[in-house]
């Protein structure tokens, strides 16, 4: 893929996200002029960039959408949900086309039809008559002279925002004189007439055979103004007129008949020049527009190695902004164009100081992932080195090699840790990447459920490791759906409770120490804690007496227990009974924890606490029935030896007393149903080795009996994926120093 297309795809996807946000906000605040201008700018930019790649259906569709937004901006068209829907669909379709473009360098075969369909929907029925969807592109600039075209472009400069050049083709009905039509009078009343051609529809007849009452004319015109005004002038003969905005490029005399298709840099430069000349820039955006034109031009120049020109353009931008005058930019662009045509003379004129170019770099994800994997392997190698150093120390007569080997191990350990940190930092992305998908989702869901809901997003700039952020989407999706479906009451019920009909769901992210916290809050009905408790007892998650011992907060946490759903009916949105347990497991799998706060009739907050990075995990290796496993050290409260006489039987279960509490004891081998080792050395006598594990989340402690305890290691955890990803007992795997795979247990999920 060429670099320009790549850039276009990246930027367009950002723009689509921005446009989606804007449209959704606009639906809520239709009066907000800035929002309209923002969305208009998104469509305008998308349309403009798409022009460079010759993807006509997309350009046409975006153009129609832009027209619609211009009409909204000028107060000619009201905003309604149907229109927002269509505009959102235009963005969806654009996103699909971008995917097509990325995969196969072209649009899908049905692109024309899709575009035409959306254009028809955008224009609505009555506008469809005035502007048939088959309105041709402006492809015959030659009908007007070069002088007329230049004059039109000049006349456009200095016009108000929203002004463009329109091509008008008026073919009056031959019998129009009988209807009282006077076509030229309509033309005379046209605002901003810039060129006019009168020609016969066929050939002019001889004077002798001329029927003076038959109109034989075809009128071609260029008009400068706002589309609405131009269409208004022809409203009575709309069926005889075709009106289309003319891309400046098509008129520009220097470029006619257009740059060669292989000169992409030239095309980009020309595009930027036209962008600077265009007048539809709101005053507040002028500097931004210049900036983006200069940046695009500079990028294109750098792309072909013209760093000097690129720097000159950047310098000219600074000058232009300072003087509030774009002419330095025009000059720089023109010089760059000339310099490209005569490369020999180019270098001499480059005395401009090199501008401080942006130092950020866009790198493919896979490359960073590769780096991450390599660092993971280095950590394994480092651990091997430590193991080797240990072995050497045991060997006799190696005294003088042990110390340098240990020093080296310490150095490599520090270096790999720093390196891991550095790579992890590269992978930090803002959670906004995930949050961005929700405004649209909430809007659609809220319409479907008939519950008006506002989504508030806070802290979208909070960053965390890419894997953590990506893993957030599904749990958040579940939580947000849950909030809308079950949490938020129907509007009439809210009204009855004295709450605003419009509910609020908040997505919030913030850093707390070395964790990132993501919360989903709603101001809905809250969780019926008593019902959760009853349900838990009914589903045999716990006994009646156990429930009685739980505090309210602990009872609320039961929603995360497997096999428990408080809603009896299921919907297609959520409530399949595994929801919250699945959320908890997904979050714990990436080393996070879940929590819930709920107040009846006030709302519910689900809190996800996640590691900022997939940092190195400190584990201790244990063995059971001849197999080795890793246990994360952060859940191990203590490692103890238990003599048999300290173990008691309580209701048929083994337990022991630890720090004045009764702790159940589970042998790891039995939990995992491992086959008995052939030579059960341990367990036959002496003390038992027990890890006291904090099950977390109010679940208390339990003892994990193992046969042996080995090294403490720092490892890079590889999450399980595929089928294995659904086994809750394991957090993931890591490679050991000897090359074997070590399974890392998820102790919180272990007790049967």
């Amino acid at each position, binding site marked *: 893929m060429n670099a320009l297309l790549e850039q276009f795809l990246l930027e367009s996807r950002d723009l689509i996200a921005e446009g989606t946000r804007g449209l959704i906000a606009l639906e809520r605040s239709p009066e907000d002029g800035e929002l309209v201008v923002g969305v208009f700018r998104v469509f305008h930019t998308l349309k403009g960039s798409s022009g460079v790649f010759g993807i006509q259906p997309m350009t046409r569709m975006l153009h129609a959408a832009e027209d619609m937004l211009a009409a909204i901006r000028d107060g000619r068209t009201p905003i309604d949900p149907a229109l927002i829907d269509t505009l959102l669909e235009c963005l969806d379709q654009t996103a699909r086309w971008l995917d097509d473009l990325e995969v196969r360098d072209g649009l899908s075969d049905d692109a024309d039809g899709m575009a035409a369909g959306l254009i028809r929907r955008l224009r609505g029925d009555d506008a469809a008559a005035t502007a048939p969807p088959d309105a041709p592109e402006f492809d015959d600039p030659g009908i007007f002279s070069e002088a007329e075209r230049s004059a039109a472009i000049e006349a456009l400069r200095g016009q108000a925002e929203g002004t463009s050049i329109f091509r008008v083709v008026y073919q*009056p009905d031959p019998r129009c*004189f009988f209807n*009282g*039509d*006077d*076509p*030229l*009078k309509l*033309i*005379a009343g046209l605002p901003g*007439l810039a060129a*006019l051609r*009168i020609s016969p529809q066929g050939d*002019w*007849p*001889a*004077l*002798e055979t*001329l029927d*003076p*009452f038959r*109109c*034989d*004319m075809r009128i071609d015109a260029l008009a400068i103004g706002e589309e609405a005004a131009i269409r208004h002038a022809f409203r009575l003969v709309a069926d005889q007129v075709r009106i289309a905005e003319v891309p400046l490029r098509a008129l520009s005399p220097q470029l006619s008949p257009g740059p060669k298709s292989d000169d992409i840099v030239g095309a980009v430069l020309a595009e930027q020049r036209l962008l600077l000349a265009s007048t539809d820039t709101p005053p507040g955006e002028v500097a931004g527009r210049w900036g983006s034109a200069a940046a695009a031009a500079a990028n294109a120049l750098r792309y072909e190695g013209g760093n000097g020109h690129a720097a000159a353009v950047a310098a000219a931008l600074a000058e232009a902004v300072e003087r509030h005058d774009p002419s330095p930019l025009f000059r720089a662009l023109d010089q760059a164009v000339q310099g490209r045509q005569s490369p020999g003379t180019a270098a001499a004129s480059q005395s401009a100081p090199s501008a401080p170019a942006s130092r950020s770099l866009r790198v493919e994800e896979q490359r960073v992932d590769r780096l991450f994997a390599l660092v993971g392997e280095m950590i394994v190698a480092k651990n091997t080195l430590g193991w080797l150093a240990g072995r050497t120390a045991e060997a006799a007569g190696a005294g003088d090699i042990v110390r340098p080997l240990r020093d080296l191990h310490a150095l490599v350990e520090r270096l790999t840790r720093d390196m891991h940190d550095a790579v992890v930092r590269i992978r930090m992305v803002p959670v906004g990447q995930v949050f961005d998908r929700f405004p649209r989702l909430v809007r659609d869901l809220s319409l479907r459920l008939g519950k008006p809901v506002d989504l508030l997003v806070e802290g979208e700039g909070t960053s965390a490791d890419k894997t953590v952020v990506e893993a957030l989407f599904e749990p958040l999706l579940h939580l947000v759906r849950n909030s809308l479906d079950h949490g938020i009451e129907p509007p009439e019920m809210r009204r009855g409770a004295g709450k605003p009909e419009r509910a609020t769901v908040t997505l919030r992210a913030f850093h707390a120490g070395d964790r990132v916290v993501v919360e989903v809050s709603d101001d809905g009905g809250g969780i019926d804690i008593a019902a959760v408790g009853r349900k838990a007892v009914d589903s045999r998650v716990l006994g009646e007496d156990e429930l009685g011992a739980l505090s309210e907060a602990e009872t609320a946490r039961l929603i995360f227990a497997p096999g428990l759903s408080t809603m009896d009916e299921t919907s297609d949105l959520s409530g399949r009974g595994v929801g919250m347990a699945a959320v908890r497991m997904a979050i714990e799998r990436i080393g996070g924890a879940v929590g819930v706060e709920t107040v009846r009739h006030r709302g519910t907050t689900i809190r996800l606490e996640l590691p900022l990075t997939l940092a190195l995990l400190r584990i201790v290796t244990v063995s059971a029935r001849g197999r080795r496993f890793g246990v994360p050290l952060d859940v191990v409260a203590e490692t103890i030896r238990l003599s048999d006489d300290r173990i008691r039987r309580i209701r048929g279960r083994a337990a022991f007393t630890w720090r004045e509490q009764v702790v159940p004891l589970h042998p790891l081998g039995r939990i995992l149903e491992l086959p008995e080792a052939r030579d059960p050395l341990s367990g036959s006598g002496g003390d038992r080795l027990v890890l006291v594990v904090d099950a977390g989340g109010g679940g208390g402690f339990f003892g994990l009996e193992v046969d042996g305890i080995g090294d403490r290691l720092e490892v890079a955890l590889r999450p399980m994926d595929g089928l294995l990803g659904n086994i809750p007992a394991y957090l993931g795997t890591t490679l050991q120093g000897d090359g074997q795979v070590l399974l890392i247990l998820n102790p919180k999920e272990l007790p049967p």
Partner: protein
Amino acid sequence: MTVRLADGVIVLEGDCPVDEAEALLDLLLANPNAPVDWTACDQLHTSVVQVLIVARRSIRGEPGDAFLRRWIVPHIHLP
């Protein structure tokens, strides 16, 4: 009368509505060498302009109306 023949010249005056087109056509056909003077012309209906374009007759003077001067003259003053 807004279209009339005076001293061998076809004169257009004031507003020339659609029904003047036939009168103009008749005068042009009847006087194949008569030039057209539109100095006093304020407005021409499209049908009248069409007759003038097809006639390719030499035209005298400049009409008072700005639209005619700027946009129609180039179509009628044939080289």
